């Protein structure tokens, strides 16, 4: 279980307690959080689950695999240093307190 904060481009936020096993993407999908599309269902193919990790957030995340890095080149909103694919972030206690920003667009 981890508490995840999804910040929307309009300034509002959605805070969810997401149980494991799940990903940060799936946590958003099952709660109909607008702004994560995840068309490929989490297979690191589509880049429509793009998020920016909050600069002030100190939660440590797993290393980025090559696949994820490649897919992030093609996201609809610009890639930044803080960009991740939310389908590659597995929920665990270690992710508790994670704050992500949803991009303007996913496709």
């Amino acid at each position, binding site marked *: 279980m981890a508490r995840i904060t999804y910040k929307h481009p309009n300034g509002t936020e959605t805070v969810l307690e997401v149980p494991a096993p799940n990903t940060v993407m799936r946590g958003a*999908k*099952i*709660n*109909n959080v*607008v702004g994560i*599309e995840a*068309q*490929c*269902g989490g*297979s*690191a*193919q*589509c*880049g429509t689950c793009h998020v920016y990790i909050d600069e002030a957030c100190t939660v440590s995340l797993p290393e980025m695999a090559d*696949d994820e890095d*490649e*897919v*992030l*080149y*093609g*996201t*609809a909103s*610009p*890639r930044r240093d803080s960009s991740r694919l939310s389908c590659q972030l597995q929920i665990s206690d270690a992710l508790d307190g994670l704050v992500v920003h949803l991009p303007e667009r996913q*496709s």
Partner: protein
Amino acid sequence: MAARSVVIVGAGQAGSDTAAALRSHGFDGRVTLVGEEPWLPYQRPPLSKAYQAGTVGQEELELRPASFYADQRIELLRGDRAVKIDRELRTLLLDSGRTLPYDALVLATGARPRALPVPGAQRPGVLALRGLDDAEALRQQLAGAERPLQVVVVGAGFIGLEVAATARELGHHPTVVEALPRVLARAVSPVMSDWLAAEHRRRGTALLLRREVVALHGAGTGDGPVQVVELDGGTRLPADLVVVGIGVLPNVGLAVEAGLNVGDGVLVDEQLRTSDPAIHAVGDCARFPSVHAGRPLRLESVQNASDQARTVAAVICGEPAPYRALPWFWSQQFTLRLQIAGITAGHDEAVTAGDPEQGRFSVFCFRHGRLVGVESVNRPADHGIARRLLAAGPDLTPEEVAAPGFDLKRRTAQPV
């Protein structure tokens, strides 16, 4: 007047996404989702891939958990079938006898596999792959086998090639029979077809092109399990299992009976409206005017189902915008991740960039000098950037792609 009650027929990708998108748009009337399948709406792509390999189970296929539909006040009627539309009364009749009134009706009925039109196609051991039940039947055969099986796959489309690849990975002996001269003939460029064909062969799959299945034989007269696949010219292939993947037919029965315009699919306009403005169609069953293809098109992809779902929800909520999303598609065969951006059919020039020998490259397809699509193998960055480029109106030329050292990633290193 805005719709107060929306009924969606078909609880697949497009149906479930439409229901969700209506709520995201703030629609607070009634939403009813009718599906004939007994399961929660699920994703089909893994059925021929990870589900067969055993790495994804049934629950992970679900698009959304049961609680989602309850939380979002979406009435999900499972295991019930829509049987008739009354356009005058604006009601939908279900198999269970229930009648649902609607202000807006969305047809999201998908498609069904085309049956192999040859003698013996009904024999046990001849499978198609569309639903979870089909996938489970196939999985039991492939994963449950005690010895390597002779698997004959009819049709070298995406599903056929994915099943053949999975079967091979599980240690079986697949033979793919295709009537056309190349694999994925309708979906990818000849360069890509040839490259993929060689990869399948290199990994031990037999691939017979320009060959047709004429009959399936088995023990007993007509209903014994399949044992032999007979091809044109009399060739006989031994078969423990036959998987038929020769394309799909859109489910248009309801629309035809209701007198809506139907071609290969339910005909809709750019707002996904049928010839009755209270009825829409989305996903695999809908034929829409495509700005990318320059002609009416029916697409069978998650992208199309899910983007059309969002368009139709907007239209129903009174915020119409034409459906113009860029088509894209993915397929996984062995470790090969094939991704297609745009529509490459009808291109007149193809330029390859990257390293086909190493299994990492992209084919850039042009028509009259203009980029129309990009096919990538294990080059997700190319694919994603190509999607962005194609959506924005591409300025890439064949000469630029052909120049030594071309790298799309570097070209667009600055955010576009």
